């Protein structure tokens, strides 16, 4: 797959994100509690301001880039869908103990996959990422606000999650150079290291 095509695809994905966000960023609605702009910003910021989410999402994109096609696109497609299912579990208050611990473990596992350059079979990679997506979705779903701004919040956090994946894939493009491959594995090690800190914090709490 050519890299200029990858760049075009990335631009197209970002354009779709902008279109959705332009709609979601509409000023406040007249329908009881519908702060659409606040909803979108809140949803968009939800994964971005959680370092454990950021680390895991970037790791998903990086691991996909490392595994190459079809994982490079299958993982970022599977993740939001399964994450939404996890979000539904969070919305209907299905109990899931120690979700934060699971999210920290996701950063450790995905970081190690990259650091050790694990070439997992596609089915295993999708299964691992999907399992963690349920935990991330549950955490987001539990925080979804009721009311008219729900769609803006949902759009915000799905887009932010998707863009973090795209960011991870973008970082992964440096693997075309030998030094880039080392750099990506170092980033994986850093993500795993950060995951250990997240885990310590989550267990402490």
């Amino acid at each position, binding site marked *: *797959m050519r890299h200029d*095509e*990858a760049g*075009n*695809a990335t631009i*197209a*994905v970002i354009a*779709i*994100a902008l*279109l*959705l966000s*332009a*709609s*979601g960023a*509409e*000023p406040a*609605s*007249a*329908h009881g509690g*519908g702060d*659409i702009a606040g909803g979108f910003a809140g949803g968009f910021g939800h994964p971005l301001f959680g370092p454990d989410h950021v680390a895991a999402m970037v790791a998903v994109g990086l691991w996909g880039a490392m595994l190459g096609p079809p994982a490079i*696109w299958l993982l*970022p*497609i*599977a*993740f*939001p*869908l399964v*994450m*939404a*299912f996890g*979000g*539904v579990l969070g*919305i*209907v208050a299905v109990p899931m103990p120690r979700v934060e611990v699971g999210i920290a473990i996701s950063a450790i596992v995905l970081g190690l996959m990259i650091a050790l350059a694990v070439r997992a079979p596609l089915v295993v990679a999708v299964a691992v990422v999907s399992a963690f997506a349920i935990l991330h979705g549950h955490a987001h*779903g539990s925080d*979804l606000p*009721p009311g*008219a*701004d*729900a*769609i*803006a919040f*949902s*759009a915000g956090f*799905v*887009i932010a999650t*998707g863009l973090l994946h795209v960011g991870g894939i973008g970082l992964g493009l440096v693997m075309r150079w030998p030094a880039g491959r080392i750099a990506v594995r170092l980033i994986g090690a850093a993500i795993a290291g950060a995951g250990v800190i997240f885990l310590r914090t989550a267990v402490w709490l």
Partner: protein
Amino acid sequence: MRPGDAGTFGGTMGLLAGTESFISGLLYSVRTPAHVVSLIGLGLLAGRAIWSTQARTLAAFAFGLVSSLGAIAWGAGETPASDVLLAMALLCGLIAATGITVSAWFTAPAALVSGTALGLDSPPDAILLREAVLMLIGTACGDIALLAMMSAAASALSRLWRGIVIRVAGSWIAAIALLVLALRWT
């Protein structure tokens, strides 16, 4: 609703300050996240198909939309249209994400249902009949043009990077629709 307010979903259409009724209707769906999500979802579905299927999909959508806007003009009451709209967005997004090939036998009815739901979810709140009718005409023109643009964009994107952008966008649309439906039903 005050002039200048915008409906979000399941709401009513208000006048944009300083614009005419037609323009207000024209831009209504752009200002309504549920409508944008639905139109992108349907556009992704239609855009992957051949030109004739796209044309049939657009025609079915236009028929459903104009019929339901007509029903609104005749005083149709509140309906669960926004739920149907989101359910259709979920379905379209899932099909686009999984890359399943569907024929016009599926896309046209899907477009008909989406168009009908979109129209029923766009009731104008104008007091004057002339303003309300102009808003509805604007909505019809705006939504049909939006879907045509989405289909054309999706058609172009489907040739890019083996349609991966379409599949990624489909997964986003499905995820958003699923979450909002879950919130609304709980």
